[in-house]
Every structure is written in C-alpha cells, then in structure tokens.
C-alpha cells in the first residue's frame, strides 16, 4: 500500500504541470545586428537580475570600426517610463551604457544614428525563485519545527500528540527529499515579465509575405536609397511584428546585382510594426535581387524574395564590395547536384565571430531564384570550411564572409555544379 502511494506521489510530481517555452532568457545577452548610418553594428543588451535595476547596452562595430555615437532610449510599453543615454560603438569590449529599468515586461529600445531611427522591441525578464526551492526549504523547516515539538511533547508524556508531530516531521522530510530527487523534473516558474504562454503549444505561425520596394521608386546609380520591406501575416493580413532574433538579427537581407558584382549582407532597421528598412547605394545600373531571411517567433525560418531596378546616373560609383581575391578548394573538385560538397578557404589569423559564427557563405543561383546561407562550423586553424548540397546543376554565385579586427571581408567566387550521373 505504501509503495503504491509512493508511486502515485512520484507520478504526480513528474507530471504536475506542462513545461513552458520562452523566447527570451533572463540573464542572457540579447545581440542584434543593425546596419545604421552606413555602419554594420551589433547592439548588445545585457539583462538585469532585479528591477529596479541596471540595463546595460553596448555596441560592437564591425565595419567601419571608427567611433560612432548612437542615441539610446529605453521605454516601458506598460507604463511609458523612458530613460535615455548614448553609446559609442567600439570594435571590441564596448563601454556599456547603464540605463535603469524599473519594471519587467515589454520594452522598446530606440536607436538613433545620423538621421536614422530603429525601434527594437524586447522584454525585460527577471528570474523568480523556483517552486522546488520553496518545497525543499519549506519541508525541512516544517520537519525541524515539528521534531522539536514532538520531542517536547514526548517529554511531557503526551504520546499521541508526539506521534502526530513526528508524523508531520516525517511528511516535511519526505517533501524535501522527494523534491531534491525530482527537482529537475519540476517545471521552472516563468520569469517575471514573460508573456503569457499557452498550455498547449501550437508550433509554427502562418507565413509572412514580404513586399520589397525602394524609396525612391527607381534609384539612380550611386544615389542613396532606402530598401523597404513590409511584412504581412498571410492569414490575418496584419503586419508581422513578431520576428525572432536568429543568428543575431531580426532579418538578414542579401542584396545582389543580377550579374553578382554587387553584394551586400545587411541588417535592416525596424522603423514601424511590420516594416524593415535599410539604406543602400548601388554602384551600377541594372536589376537587383533582395533576399531576406526572417523567422517568426515559435516558427521556422523563411526566405522572402524581391527585386528592384537601379537606373543609370551621373554620380560615380559610391561604394564597392570589400572583396578579397580568393581561390576556394572544392571537395569534390566538381560538385554534384544533391550531394554534399565542401568548400574550404584560407582565412587570416584573428577572425572574430560575426552574427554568432566564424564564417558565412551566401550562395545564389545565377537567375536569383535560389539563395542559400551556409555557416562555418568551427574548423580549427586559419581555414573556413562550409558543406552544402547544391540543389540543382548549373553555375552558382557564392560569397564567403568573415570578420577581422577592422572589417568584414567578402570573398566572391563561382561554383559550377554537375548533374548527378553526368560524371559517370
């Protein structure tokens, strides 16, 4: 009978409540790449362990690494309380600006640089004490108190009462001991400030549709323009404003000219709900592709594609890709469609992680219909190694990217992929 009761109690403890899922973890840095005022930066928000408490914000510069001052404003969406400060971008170990937040929950960080403004939504979360700790310490406290009471009562010869108190003490010790054993299985309480979570996770949100436009409509060669992406939920028609940070950005936009001689991998600013914008300058007239990777919260990633045209202009070319001559080593030498191929490049010493990875490889089919984004997986030595299965035969345009101490290097090359069976 006792064994049966023990088994029931164990099962109840293990299955008492469903596990909750969170997109943000208290205490973990939030890192968001932003292309702002002509610079490629990563904004780092360090969480706080209490409220009121310090929220520390730093900005890491990747290109250019010259000093750039940014205006910061943190606003609680719940009560509207706003604090402001400034941050200076630095290539490494930025000086963190400390702003005080007075409550948990949804907030907005407004970044200002030049005449550009980005608004980044985020949640301030603070961990709570766990139910397990409460049970362990509560159970032991109860046991200790009752044992003392039992001994005293026994001493004055009230046997029944003493047994009752001893029984209570045994219950307290049992609770504490069982929780020590099963604490790992107990659900952690949601942090203070976390959004509501459904008891039954659905898993996957509807698709986002993206509309790509330029402002002005047909920018001239060498002229600065804004590439705008409006995201709309395919099921509700509402703006998509729930993008998750993936690979340290809410969106990765790759802009390439049709001929592949222009390449930019940028991280647009959220300027309004569902609206992302980035300023660019294209150095040659013609047709351009914009491939955008986004990931909605609790969902998988998706690729949105768009195209625009740059007309000939009087202005000279405004910028060019920081291209490095490169001779990648392919394995097999003639990659075959549908089979893994490995691309290896030499890299200088001192490559630093960018967007959470040592290296990135962007691969585009010649017609722009396909875009792949491959990550370097931690190859030892001064090498970058990527493995990718090219989906179809044909010529692919490829750009490998990595960050050094003073810039982001882009190494362009092409890969010719043979059809399966053609090599036999």
């Amino acid at each position, binding site marked *: *009978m*006792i064994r049966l*009761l*023990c088994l*029931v*109690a164990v099962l*109840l*403890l293990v299955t*008492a*409540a469903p596990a909750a899922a969170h997109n943000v973890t208290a205490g973990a840095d939030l890192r968001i790449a932003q292309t702002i005022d002509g610079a490629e930066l990563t904004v780092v928000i360090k969480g706080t362990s209490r409220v009121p408490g310090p929220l520390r914000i730093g900005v890491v510069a990747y290109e250019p690494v010259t000093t750039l001052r940014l205006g910061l404003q943190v*606003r*609680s*969406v*719940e*009560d*509207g309380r706003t604090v402001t400060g400034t941050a200076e971008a630095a290539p490494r170990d930025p000086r963190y600006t400390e702003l005080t937040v007075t409550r948990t929950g949804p907030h907005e960080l407004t970044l200002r640089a030049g005449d550009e403004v980005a608004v980044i939504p985020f949640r301030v979360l603070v961990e709570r004490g766990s*139910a397990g700790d*409460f*049970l362990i310490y*509560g*159970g032991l406290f109860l046991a200790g108190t009752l044992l003392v009471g039992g001994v005293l009562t026994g001493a004055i010869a009230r046997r029944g009462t003493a*047994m009752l108190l*001893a*029984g209570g003490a*045994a*219950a307290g*010790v*049992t*609770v504490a001991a*069982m*929780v020590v054993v099963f604490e790992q299985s*107990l*659900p952690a309480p949601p942090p203070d400030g976390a*959004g*509501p*979570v*459904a*008891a*039954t*996770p*659905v898993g*996957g*949100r*509807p698709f986002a549709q993206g509309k790509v436009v330029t402002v002005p409509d047909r920018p001239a060669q060498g002229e600065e323009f804004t590439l705008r992406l409006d995201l709309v*939920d*395919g*099921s*509700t*028609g*509402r703006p998509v404003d*729930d993008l998750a940070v993936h690979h340290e950005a809410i969106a990765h936009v790759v802009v390439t000219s049709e001929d592949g001689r222009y390449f930019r991998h940028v991280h647009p600013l959220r300027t309004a709900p569902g609206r992302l914008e980035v300023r660019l300058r294209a150095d040659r007239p013609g047709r351009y592709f914009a491939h955008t990777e986004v990931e*909605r*919260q*609790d969902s998988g990633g998706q690729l949105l594609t768009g195209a625009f045209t740059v007309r000939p202009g009087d202005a000279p070319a405004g910028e060019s890709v920081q291209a490095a001559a490169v001779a990648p080593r392919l394995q097999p030498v003639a990659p075959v469609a549908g089979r893994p191929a490995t691309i290896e490049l030499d890299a200088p010493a001192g490559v630093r992680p960018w967007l959470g990875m040592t290296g990135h490889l962007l691969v585009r089919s010649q017609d722009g219909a396909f875009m792949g984004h491959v990550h370097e997986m931690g190859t030892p030595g001064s090498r970058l190694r990527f493995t990718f299965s090219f989906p179809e035969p044909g010529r692919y345009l490829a750009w490998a990217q990595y960050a050094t101490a003073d810039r982001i290097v882009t190494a362009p090359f092409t890969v010719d992929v043979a059809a399966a069976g053609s090599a036999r």
Partner: protein
Amino acid sequence: MKRLAAVAVLVAAAVALFVAGGNAAAEPLRASTTGTRYAATVLIEEPVTGRVSVKVVVDSGDADTLAVSAVMPDMGHSTPELTAREQRPGRFLAEGELFSMSGVWDLSLRFDGPAGEEQLTVKALIGDG
C-alpha cells in the same frame, strides 16, 4: 507507523500539486500599454472563449472612440472589430465574441480622438469558456 508514512507521502503529493498546478485556472486579465498618443489599461474579468466583456480605462490621451479586435498569432485567427461604448469619459466597455479558441491572443485597441488614431496591443491568455 505505516499509516504515518502513508499520510506523509500523501501530504508531499498534495503540496507538490498545489505549488505546481496552482496556475492552471484562467485568471482575470489586467494589462497596461502606452503608445505615443494614448495609454490604457485593459480589464477582462473572465478571459475565456465565447462572449466577453472588455473594460478599457484610458490612462492618458483624449480618446473619442475605441474599437477592439483580436488576433491569435499562433493560429492566424483574426476577429472583427467590436465598437466599445464610452460609459463615462475615459472608460470604455466592449462586449461580444472576440476569442474563438483558448490560447495566447493579441488584443488590439484602436483609439481615435483629436490627437489622431493609434493602435495599441496587449497580450491575453484565454481559457476555455
């Protein structure tokens, strides 16, 4: 002694259930949000599927009208706007069907007034009605 041990185990199970399962019931919703023109607090005594009453207290801003609608991001559900009645200045009440299933919903408040239109959103955990 056996009885005593059995009682101890039962007490342990009851305490664990109380702590771990204490948040299972749908609790009244109270959420505040601020925009650039308006700030408001939303109160739903019984946030469940079916007919609900949504009370909105305008904490700042001069709102003439308020329309309430809802979206369930996980499922892509969307419900039509309910026009809220202004019971007295700064206090609105919207009644009707907003949430077609239990889960997490985004409740949108579309204010209009001399300062212009603004839409604010709060998250709402909806239980079964």
